[in-house]
């Protein structure tokens, strides 16, 4: 298992992705949308998705919030407790880039900044998918899950270079 490639590991998780909902101090709008994704209307269990209550059981972390300083140690512990391969879906503007809290004193300001802290703690995240929106819609969250599991290909390239026409 240790020497398998990520695509091979993902193939095994693909048929039975278990998700853990990790809130790092969000306004709860994204959390309501995450719960909505798992309710009968959207029924994520069609894809084998199951909500688990312990990070030890999780394959995918549904991450919300701009990471408040108070929640930071708990977030690190939860991510450390998750067995590898760790897949993370950052949901909502706050998780993606901090949102309106990107430079406040009490928050870290989104997942990219948390990643620097995780590198120092030697916690590796194997795959990250960003689902923007304030709040992110349930359809977008399901799309993000499918992207994370490799059901669909990413439509846009990761880095977009803007060039002026003039």
């Amino acid at each position, binding site marked *: *298992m240790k020497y398998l490639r990520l695509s091979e*590991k993902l193939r*095994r*998780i693909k*048929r*039975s992705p*278990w998700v853990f909902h990790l809130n790092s101090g969000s306004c709860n709008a994204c959390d309501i949308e995450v719960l909505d994704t798992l309710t*009968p209307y959207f*029924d994520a*269990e*069609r*894809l*084998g998705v*199951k909500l*688990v*209550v*312990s990070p*030890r*059981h999780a*394959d995918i972390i549904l991450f919300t919030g701009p990471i408040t300083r108070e929640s930071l140690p708990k977030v690190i512990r939860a991510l450390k*407790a998750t*067995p*590898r*391969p760790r897949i993370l879906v950052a949901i909502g503007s706050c998780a993606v880039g901090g949102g309106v809290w990107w430079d406040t004193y009490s928050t870290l300001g989104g997942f990219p900044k948390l990643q620097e802290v995780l590198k120092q703690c030697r916690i590796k995240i194997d795959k990250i998918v960003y689902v923007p929106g304030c709040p992110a819609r349930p359809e977008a969250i399901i799309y993000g899950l499918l992207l994370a599991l490799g059901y669909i290909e990413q439509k846009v390239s990761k880095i977009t270079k803007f060039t002026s026409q003039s």
Partner: protein
Amino acid sequence: MEYINIILMTLIPLFSAPIYDSIERKIKAAIQSRIGPIGFPRSFLQSWFDIIKLFNKELVLTSYGVSLITILELILILITMIILQIALLTSQLYWIISLLITFLSTSTAFSLFRAILLDNPFSSIGAFRGFYITLTVEGFFLSSLIIMLLIDVSIISRILLFCVIAISCYVVGSKVPFDIAEAEPEIASGVYVELSGPLLAIALYSLQIKRYILAQILSYSLLKLINTSNTSVTALMTVLLTPIIWMIFGIVSAIFARTRVDVGPSTLLKVVLILMLLIIATLTVKVV
């Protein structure tokens, strides 16, 4: 020929228990106006996919004792299952019934010991709730099973005994509302909270085999209730009735999904006590 029958009867639960669990998930989804795991393989094999995936995940181990007890629990449940199949095919051997009951209670005890050993408060809370529920029903369950299988009693007593066995099989099989600890989401996975990867797979597989054993015991009790004497017919009927009873349990658990988990054990104790008093009364009347 008997050996072949025993091997066949032993192999069926090993493969079919996760399949029945997958079908139960599909039925629950239908009751809750959902689709559930979609497509042919997912509908029947979702629990197998879960177990296979967990076997391939990283193992985060907190103590070596836990892994040993989890493996021992699976072994004990497998032994219980083999003894049950022998008991079904050779019902004239009474000592087999006592051996079955011994192993059934020991495997339950092991699953609770594992939860107590874990250094996690959520696991301990789940284990103590498990202890309370087990103490409530285990004694009545095993004594009712012995009376039902070994003693010739009146039809009213047999019906009451069957009710106690049915309730106990539902409760010991960790169905809603007797599966989760209180109402906090953090402790909802109770005794499984610290397990990960292959250990969690073993624990879940053990639970599914245990549910199969309990459904099979209940189907055997049902056949005893209607006084089926032919051994081979009983064994075949048990195999056919087991998935039906499993699905009925699934439907009941979907209906009970919104019941209060804190009221469940006390209501259970009251119901079982009333039934046991009625059984004692009917047995005493017969003796007099």
